């Protein structure tokens, strides 16, 4: 019903915009047509589901910005966080949840996921995460590979994940565009797209690109080959941008016709988007020395790395990362599964945090995404054992506000602040304890997961009729 009314309203708005018939006289000179590259040809069709005004009170609240309220409260209203504090106003008719002994936090944001592009079950037919047909595949978009029926999304929300960034794999130096999703199932990937979030460019350092292409006797076969191919691509992108900037200026000045517009090159569209600050670089990079090379390269071509992903050796250059304002998205303890992960240590995350750099806990894994809070807890404890004492309410930034910063959505979500999206998790205990689980998850103020209510636990199409359908996972 509500949708219908909305649809009618849109139609009316569209009618209102129809220009009136032209008067015969006084035709103003039409501005020259300027060909431009559409910024959002696959727009989000996400819409928030209905919620009710809800007050959750008596919980230990981590606001995600470093503050804690013991016995605190949060009010959700109109899909947003309306108030956070020791106490909040309770409007008439509000649903009140007494949450004594429980914890309330912002929803977890995973900045590195392959859900949908490497879905479950892991069959070749649905394995769509790596366009490993050339080292620069900046033209591909992860969202065009996403299978919205991946059961992994439902497991992730049970782990308190409300927003996730889906990246292409790391076979290529330039893997293509990543996309930010609300963790709300839809019939299409567009239904899940976080409205207004910037796309990313996935880049990769190190072993994967040189192995994939070196084994085909093709460049890059070495780390120096990696950087050389990167730099040529950036140089070409700078050239492409010059052509477009020049054309656009001339067209605006009435000196260029639409047919003068440069030929679109989809790969360069993405790289130019980075140079224009409209696309964020998410760079898979394990080793400290390689991160430094990438930073120098970014200076050479005038772009910024948002976040180094995996970043197993960020602790070796945490000062440099702090100075450059680059986040590190890290595991708590993965190491030794390949040479570039050999120097992984459990203190990586707290050491990066302690240096004043932006630390993020990420998963890169359909299982790990279900307990990013546990990974943060292990890192927190490892830090404490070497004298880096970080309060849990401060460490929660690794799980929500810092990844939101890495995705440039921190003005809309990532912390419990009045006016931000109502993306909230109620935990049945201390979320840094192994014994705690998410009890309820709100996304944009609507309950999208409830451990106690089968009606609030989604089953993807794939799982219908299967032996595991509807089970407590």
């Amino acid at each position, binding site marked *: 019903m509500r949708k219908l009314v909305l649809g009618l309203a849109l139609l009316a708005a569209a009618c209102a915009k129809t220009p009136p018939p032209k008067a015969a006289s006084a035709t103003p000179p039409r501005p020259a047509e300027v060909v431009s590259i559409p910024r959002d040809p696959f727009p989000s069709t996400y819409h928030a589901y209905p919620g009710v005004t809800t007050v959750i009170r008596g919980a230990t609240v981590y606001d995600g910005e470093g503050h804690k309220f013991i016995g605190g409260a949060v009010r959700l209203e109109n899909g947003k966080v309306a108030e956070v504090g020791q106490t909040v106003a309770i409007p008439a008719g509000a649903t009140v949840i007494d949450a004594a002994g429980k914890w309330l936090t912002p929803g977890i944001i995973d900045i590195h996921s392959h859900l949908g592009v490497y879905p*479950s079950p892991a069959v070749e037919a649905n394995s769509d995460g790596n366009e490993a047909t050339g080292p620069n595949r900046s033209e591909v978009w992860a969202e065009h590979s996403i299978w919205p029926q991946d059961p992994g999304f439902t497991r992730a929300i049970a782990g308190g994940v409300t927003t996730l960034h889906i990246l292409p794999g790391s076979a290529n130096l330039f893997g293509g565009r990543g996309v930010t999703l609300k963790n709300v199932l839809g019939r299409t990937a567009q239904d899940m797209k976080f409205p207004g979030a910037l796309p990313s460019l996935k880049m990769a350092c190190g072993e994967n690109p040189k192995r994939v292409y070196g084994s085909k006797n093709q460049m890059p076969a070495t780390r120096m080959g990696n950087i050389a191919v990167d730099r040529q691509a950036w140089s070409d992108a700078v050239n492409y941008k010059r052509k477009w900037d020049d054309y656009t200026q001339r067209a605006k000045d009435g000196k260029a016709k639409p047919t003068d517009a440069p030929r679109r090159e989809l790969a360069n569209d993405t790289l130019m988007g980075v140079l224009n600050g409209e696309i964020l670089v998410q760079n898979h990079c394990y080793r400290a020395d390689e991160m430094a090379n990438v930073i120098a390269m970014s200076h050479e071509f005038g772009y910024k790395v948002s976040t180094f992903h995996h970043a197993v050796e960020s602790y070796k250059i945490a000062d440099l990362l702090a100075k450059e304002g680059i986040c590190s998205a890290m595991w708590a*303890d993965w190491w030794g599964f390949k040479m570039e992960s050999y120097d992984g240590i459990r203190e990586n995350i707290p050491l990066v945090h302690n240096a004043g750099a932006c630390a993020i806990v990420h998963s890169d894994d359909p299982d790990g995404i279900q307990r990013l809070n546990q990974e943060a807890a292990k890192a927190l404890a490892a830090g404490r054992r070497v004298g880096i004492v970080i309060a849990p309410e401060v460490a929660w930034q690794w799980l929500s506000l810092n990844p939101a910063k890495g995705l440039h959505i921190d003005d809309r979500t990532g912390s419990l602040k009045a006016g931000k999206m109502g993306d909230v998790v109620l935990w049945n205990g201390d979320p840094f304890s*192994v014994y705690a689980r998410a009890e309820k998850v709100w996304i944009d103020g609507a309950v999208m997961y409830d451990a106690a209510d089968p009606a609030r636990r989604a089953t993807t199409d794939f799982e219908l009729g299967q032996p595991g359908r509807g089970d407590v996972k």
Partner: protein
Amino acid sequence: MKRLALLLLLTAAPVFASTIAITGGRVATGTDTPPTDATILIRDGRIVAVGAVAVPAGATVIDATGKWVTPGIVAAMSRVGLSEVDEGTPSNDAAARRSPFSAGLDVVPALNAAASPIAVTRQSGVTRAAVAPEATRTIFGGRGALITLANGPDLLTRAHAFQVVELGEQGARIAGGSRPAAYAAFEEGLAEARDLAANRARYRSFEPREAQLTRLDAEALVPVVEGREPLVVHVERASDILSVLRLRQHYPALKLILIGADEGWLVAREIAAAHVPVIALSLEDRPEEFESLAATKSNIGRMVAAGVTVAIGSYGDGTGNQTRNLPQFAGNTVAQGRLPGGVGLSWTQALASITSVPAKIWGMTDTGTLSIGKRADVVVWDGDPLELASAPVAVLIDGVVQPLATRQTELRDRYVRLQHDTLPLQYPK
């Protein structure tokens, strides 16, 4: 030769100098008794007392006041000691894709006490482990071993501890594309073993042929078919589990152990009735493959409730399934039981699933609990051993206090401050 043997004996033997008393700690024994405050006395590498006992004069005291004490963690399955860096280096001995041998491959000569994962895993409280090779060319992976993680030159405690076989999707893939192909390979392998055992003199000599076992492989399967060496079978799907249990109709002596068993809860009564123990992960809850459609984190709880013997474990890796994180995996089974509709383990069951239960599965009757007469494999923790924030502060194996430093702690200490003094960081401080 004689001197070498003596040297090994000397270095591997625990130091039996004195009595050790671990006092003041909250002791969880790995059995079904709840944790209590107790003192543990250790003499000659064995536990000689647990409870409210006086500390003998001259004993070395480990003060565990405010701390927890448990048996050493027993990794029901792992690959620790087989590899330094898993991918793309010659340090990895878990798999041999181009070898003509399979069932006969024995992990023992690959065991490397100096491999970093040994120290890293020991630092997390793991004191004993089963170590398995990986099946690649045929469905048979080879012979696994039991090891100690004690600091020293030799890890081995039991060679030829088990044989590994793949009979699910992985087995089907290896065998040529189907489950029937995997079962055909299995029957052929066991038939050859019977032939060989029946008449060694007449058994054909080595003839490497596609998809056929060598004499060495057949030899390795003789103790399996005769029930003297356990067979660890990797399957996940409920129907695959039933197929494995039915193997005993033709091979009644088989000592089966299931590994994986994501859908075990669907056939838990059948597994329990067959008295086949299971090594399973506690966190599998996705249809990761078609053979795991019913995966749930309640799997272990439901199997245990049905009477199945279940230890937590997997072949393990350096990512999400690290052997050192067994306490985390166990703690999650407790969490699962607190979820509406979820089935988990009690705290004592959870601890047992990574201590006494795996010890029992492997017939390691002298470890796995803190009881009189057992080997003194003991861990002192700075908190609840299953909690994410906790870590061992002391690890004893056979009564010997183990070093807890690792390559990783050295890296940490080097980079904990990034100052550049008079020399680069790579010089000693």
